[in-house]
């Protein structure tokens, strides 16, 4: 039986950001869906109850080798063997390194340009060639990682904290707070993201990354909040949470000890995938001329500048575009792998 796609409390579907953000939410949502009753096929001992406390079909507890595994260690074991996870994790590590110390692999100065070399192709020491301004495309591509990652990580942390806390509180306490929050989230979903960005950022004149980060957090938190709210609601309904409450555990203890640990997984997944889409969003806004501004080195700006010359010098567009796509892909794959590992249904 398919789980209802959207919560009946939501007046609008969270699609202001289009498919990419829905990917994040959709992947995470499948984690918040209530667990289905155990498979009727008795021959699937691998699919044990999520807490691994020795479901009858699994290896009997006490039997040698039948050590019960917790979901978390189980997920970690699975992740370590997953090539997709390893690949994306390595890639992200590399990206973080070069955004901290770009000079490690690029000796030049991304802002030192030589107009005489405008649009020239690859040359020794300059493998990616030159752009219209005669700047070294390789150096600029390497330095572009910093802006993208800064925006992506800061915006994700902001959106995850804000959305997680507000959504979690809404799910846990319910009542008017929940109703208010759901309506506010609806309002933000009603605004198409790119349009909102154009309107909001076109009036800002700062050339730091912070307006872009702020805008992404502003439009990104409702997505996380909705997931967090849903997963808290699901976690709250678990029998052991009900039992803890029946035994007299106060709301604070219930939230911290029982609900939060179980509700946090979907938020992590949505945040990881969202990180990739935020990077893409930053590039899109920069491309439209309202995101980051020069002299900040950004893939979006470089692609925008290179676009009119695509017939003459496609290399100017392809390298930053490739870097951008690979970066986004790395984060989305990471989120996808984490989701797979945390989802006992599809194990």
């Amino acid at each position: 039986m398919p789980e209802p796609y959207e919560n009946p409390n939501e007046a609008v579907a969270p699609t202001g950001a289009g498919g990419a953000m829905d990917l994040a939410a959709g992947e995470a949502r499948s984690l918040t869906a209530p667990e289905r009753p155990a498979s009727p096929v008795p021959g699937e001992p691998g699919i044990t109850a999520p807490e691994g406390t020795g479901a009858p079909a699994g290896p009997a507890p006490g039997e040698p080798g039948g050590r019960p595994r917790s979901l978390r260690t189980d997920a970690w074991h699975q992740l370590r063997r997953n090539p997709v996870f390893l690949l994306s994790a390595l890639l992200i590590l590399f990206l973080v390194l070069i955004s901290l110390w770009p000079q490690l692999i690029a000796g030049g100065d991304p802002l030192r340009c030589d107009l005489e070399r405008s649009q020239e192709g690859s040359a020794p020491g300059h493998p990616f060639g030159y752009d219209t301004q005669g700047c070294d495309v390789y150096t600029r591509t390497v330095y572009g990682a910093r802006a993208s990652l800064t925006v992506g990580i800061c915006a994700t942390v902001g959106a995850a904290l804000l959305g997680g806390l507000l959504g979690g509180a809404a799910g846990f306490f319910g009542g008017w707070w929940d109703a208010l929050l759901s309506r506010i989230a609806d309002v933000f979903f009603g605004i198409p993201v790119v349009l909102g960005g154009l309107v909001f950022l076109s009036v800002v004149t700062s050339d730091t990354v912070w307006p872009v980060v702020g805008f992404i957090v502003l439009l990104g938190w409702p997505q996380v909040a909705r997931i967090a709210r849903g997963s808290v609601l699901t976690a709250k309904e678990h029998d052991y949470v009900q039992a803890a409450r029946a035994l007299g555990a106060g709301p604070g203890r219930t939230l911290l000890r029982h609900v939060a640990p179980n509700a946090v997984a979907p938020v992590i997944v949505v945040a990881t995938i969202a990180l990739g889409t935020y990077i893409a969003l930053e590039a899109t806004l920069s491309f439209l001329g309202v995101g980051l501004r020069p002299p900040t080195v950004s893939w979006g700006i470089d692609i925008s500048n290179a676009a009119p010359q695509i017939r003459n010098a496609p290399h100017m567009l392809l390298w930053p575009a490739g870097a951008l796509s690979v970066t986004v892909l790395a984060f989305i794959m990471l989120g996808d792998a984490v989701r797979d590992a945390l989802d006992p249904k599809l194990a």
Partner: protein
Amino acid sequence: MLLDVQDLRVEFRTRDGIARAVNGVSYGVDAGETLAVLGESGSGKSVTAQAVMGILDTPPGRITGGRILFRGRDLLTLPEDARRAVRGAEMAMVFQDALSALNPVLTVGDQLAEMFTVHRGMSRRDARARAVELMDRVRIPAARQRAGQYPHQFSGGMRQRIMIAMAIALEPALIIADEPTTALDVTVQAQVMDLLAELRRETGTALVLITHDLGVVADVADRIAVMYAGRIVETAPVHDLYRAPAHPYTRGLLDSIPRLDRKGRELYAIKGLPPGLTALPAGCAFHPRCPRARDLCRTDEPPLFPVAGEGQVAGAGGDGRGAGDGGEARRAWDAGGAGGRRSACHFWRETLDDADISAAV
């Protein structure tokens, strides 16, 4: 013989290794006969049934050996088209949880009519009329109106009646009922079971009743096959088995039924847990839990011994149902045991003798 399962083996590939869910199961069902397959969850009884129906999830499941003869044809070697024509028309299945076994977005009338349009090529109108007839037959009130409703609008008992109607729609020679009453309230259980038994009598259909409920079995079944860890450990005419089980596992099961005449005494429980299917114990799979286990049981896997003696007495003795009309050496494989009794226990004889002691205690 209508259905003859021979040495069936099914494996599941899992993260923890190969799970051997069915390890050489053999049973037979005659036309018009009711066979109860008894066992805990995980004993392989449902998997066997799914293999017979051809609805095993493959992968992860895989049939690794054996034959399934239905009306003399081996279903496992039949081409998919021929196999499909058998399903639903010649053998049908009643599932445990009717709510999830019925399609939530189609009306029950459509789901019943589908049988006739697909297998019989009927027009939609005729098929619809037959669907309503069927619903009448399983005593669903206001069948004509209710045919246009969706599964979630029916009560649990009514839904199971629809499942039964679907099973009898094309008057198959064999119905496999996989725990048909487990998901129902006790009062409704009896009604559904009675309906199933009644329809079976009317149509002369053979029935394989899969259950873990010993109480259900006694009333309707002719014969019982008890399964444990993917094997049949004992098979016998129903009354013989109840009177004197020839396998310690069956003994344990019978002793763990609460009984009014033993009120106040501690209830018997089989110690331990069923074995994991990825790592079955050597020898007799039941030995770690068996009160009777000796060294032999830990090393040698017991074959299905024919059970003589007590069973013979019971068969000849006057209750007239059990072995008397059901078991007379009909099967090649069970010809050895009186009344078709067999037990996969090295010490079946001792177990059998214990029966009297147990009754006396």
